[in-house]
């Protein structure tokens, strides 16, 4: 078999994944932190004030990366949920369920930071604009997935039920993304675009893209860390977890080699 495919199969095994993710985590956290510091310095200090919004526009450096992450996290959760439902891979169930709280966190930051910008700029904390409402529905979907997962006793059945809910909720993703085009309400349209021209000056854009990259790396770090913790509970009957737990109660030396 192709060595890459072989490695991918190996990664699906929980003990291998646990060790691999544990080695990767410090690097991911370091890159995310470094990227955030550079991006925040660029956004708060280097970038000039907006000619209309003054310095209030600087909150986009948390709002926009988190908004992108809220959609990305949902897509990641739904994709892994799909794999879990079709091929019943335990690691995919775990990854899907690990992504839900991280996605909920990013969605919450998006809503709160948007509200904090809306007050001085629009004159209101909240309005039932299409973009705002669909993003709120996204938060409820994340909470629904988390709630359903914790409401069912059997963890693997719970993961499949929650994955199914996550898949149904995918219908909300295009609504969030296209809401500013389909309904002409208060939220502004798309400024940054992957293809074609972005309607933003380069000195304002690079901190935004740096923070977007940093939040992506952070997302994967958080999902891996959560998956490791979840695998310990899921596999608590297995020898590799028992060896780890024995090491933990007798001192840390026993766990070092696993």
């Amino acid at each position: 078999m192709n060595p890459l495919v072989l490695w991918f199969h190996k990664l699906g095994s929980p003990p291998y994944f646990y060790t691999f993710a544990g080695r990767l985590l410090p690097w991911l956290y370091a890159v995310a932190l470094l990227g955030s510091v550079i991006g925040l310095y660029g956004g708060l200090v280097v970038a000039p004030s907006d000619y209309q919004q003054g310095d209030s526009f600087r909150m986009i450096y948390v709002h926009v990366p988190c908004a992108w992450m809220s959609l990305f996290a949902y897509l990641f959760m739904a994709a892994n949920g799909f794999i879990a439902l079709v091929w019943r891979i335990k690691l995919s169930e775990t990854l899907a369920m690990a992504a839900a709280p991280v996605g909920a966190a990013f969605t919450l930051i998006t809503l709160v930071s948007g509200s904090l910008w809306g007050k001085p700029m629009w004159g209101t904390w909240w309005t039932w604009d299409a973009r705002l409402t669909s993003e709120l529905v996204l938060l409820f979907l994340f909470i629904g997935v988390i709630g359903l997962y914790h409401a069912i006793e059997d963890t693997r059945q719970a993961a499949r039920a929650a994955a199914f809910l996550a898949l149904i909720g995918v219908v909300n993703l295009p609504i969030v993304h296209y809401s500013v085009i389909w309904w002409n309400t208060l939220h502004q349209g798309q400024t940054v675009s992957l293809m074609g021209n972005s309607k933003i000056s380069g000195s304002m854009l690079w901190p935004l893209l740096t923070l977007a990259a940093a939040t992506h790396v952070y997302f994967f770090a958080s999902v891996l860390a959560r998956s490791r913790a979840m695998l310990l509970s899921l596999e608590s009957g297995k020898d590799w977890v028992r060896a780890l737990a024995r090491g933990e109660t007798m001192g840390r030396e026993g766990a070092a080699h696993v």
Partner: protein
Amino acid sequence: MSEFFAMGGYGGYVWAAYAVFFVVLAIDAVAPVWQRRRALRELGTRLKRQAARNSP
């Protein structure tokens, strides 16, 4: 420096947005550390109890 913190009069809103960003993500980062420790500790004490019960 105070000009930097004032953010042209929008200081309260801008810094509140950044505070929410850091507080929420800090909680999100710490949660898995606690979960992992608790899972290992609980299983460890269970195994110890089992071993004590099985030894004559």
